[in-house]
């Protein structure tokens, strides 16, 4: 397995008495679009900031392109090949669109003028307009333009489509997809919009209370997670302890026993058959349900 583009090992971050990250371990491989899902306050933004050298971890390791993200010199080198779009779309409000472009382009020798023209058009940005007067959609468009035109190997985005109408959202997603279409480009983005993650991501990492809970290819999650419903003639038996692996949660409601499985549905079904259910339903589980389950919300 080639070296991951992003890797954290037992990453911890404490501010005062708040433990934002409590031993986060994750990897992101090159050439993938990886969605980073987590509730508010789960530690997503903290993780991204540590990767970019804006914060230093309390303990543990964070690496980008194999280099330590908490080393100041290495971090400057990392940022030569990374584009970051923060949650509030950080930009210099006092500059105009063209000044922002010139400022950013000055740092990236491989600047793509063709993409610049393309995205100025797509997002409807006029060069002479001051950044502080841009609407939310245009501001995001500009931030995305500045990120993509750098020709960076890695894009890191924090909630890129938050607050955007569906049309602009789709344009942003399309821009991200076209970036990865050339090999060796990677996108790592955090989001609350599960549908978008399902649409463009091929891998997903879920974080809850400072730790990684699920890390898998999206297709694997779709093929492995199942909700199995056993209906009995009389009251369902007391919750059995399954020997088969993959049982995430078992619940009982009158004559129905429901098992949430993260894999091995067939073996679980076989193990439960002797209990004599009247019917067995095996149903796919949506990413949203997997997410809610992994962040401890009653599904």
């Amino acid at each position, binding site marked *: 397995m080639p070296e991951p583009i992003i890797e954290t090992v037992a990453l911890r971050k404490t501010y005062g008495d708040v433990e934002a990250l409590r031993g986060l371990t994750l990897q992101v491989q090159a*050439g*993938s*679009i990886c969605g980073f899902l987590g509730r508010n306050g789960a530690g997503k933004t903290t993780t991204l900031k540590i990767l970019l050298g804006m914060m230093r971890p309390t303990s543990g390791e964070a690496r980008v392109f194999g280099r330590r993200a908490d080393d100041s010199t290495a971090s400057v080198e990392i940022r030569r090949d990374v584009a970051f779009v923060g949650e509030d779309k950080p930009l210099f409000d006092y500059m105009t669109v063209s000044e922002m472009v010139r400022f950013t382009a000055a740092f990236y020798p491989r600047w793509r003028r063709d993409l610049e023209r393309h995205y100025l058009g797509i997002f409807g940005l006029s060069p002479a307009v001051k950044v502080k007067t841009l609407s939310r959609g245009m501001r995001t468009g500009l931030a995305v333009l500045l990120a993509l035109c750098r020709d960076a190997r890695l894009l890191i985005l924090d909630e890129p489509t938050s607050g955007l109408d569906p049309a602009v959202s*789709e344009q942003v*997603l*399309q821009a991200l*997809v*076209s970036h*990865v*279409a*050339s090999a060796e480009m990677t996108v790592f983005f955090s989001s609350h919009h599960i*549908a978008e993650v*399902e*649409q*463009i*991501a*091929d891998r997903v990492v879920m974080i809850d209370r400072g730790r990684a809970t699920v890390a898998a290819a*999206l*297709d694997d999650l*779709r*093929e492995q997670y*199942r909700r199995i419903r056993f209906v009995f003639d009389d009251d369902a038996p007391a919750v059995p302890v399954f020997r088969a692996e993959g049982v995430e949660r078992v619940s009982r409601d009158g004559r129905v026993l429901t098992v949430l499985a993260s894999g091995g*549905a*067939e*073996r679980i*079904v*076989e193990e439960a058959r002797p209990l004599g259910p009247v019917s*067995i*339903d*095996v*149903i*796919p*589980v*949506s*990413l*949203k349900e997997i997410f809610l389950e992994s962040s401890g919300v009653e599904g």
Partner: protein
Amino acid sequence: MDTSFLRPNPSSGVPIYLQLIEQVKHAIETGALRAGEQLPGIRPLAERLVINPNTVAKAYRELEHEGVIELRHGAGAFVSADRRPRQLTNTMRAGQAIVAATVERLRARGLGEDEIRRLFEAQLAGLPRKGERSA
């Protein structure tokens, strides 16, 4: 053919690459795609449908594995001139007859459309992956 690809449904529970595979096979069956015709490139199709290019690549690889299409290095993806896709069509027609008969029998037992659909979905969802032995 480019513009007649439908946007896959990411939340349907069916992996997107499988939905694409289905679309290509269906297009071949209905004649929208003919033997020897070129499919859209991976990157343009991913951009048009706003899905991950890896997903398109996976679908194309699977289709090539099944012999439905050919991936010609540097030139693109083309529908196979092979016999095999036509065999698939025959199998599909036979399958359609089986399904029609089964649905009729279930209706005769008093089951409604939704119930019949649920039975099929549950059966498919519970089935082991292709190549594994059924439990």
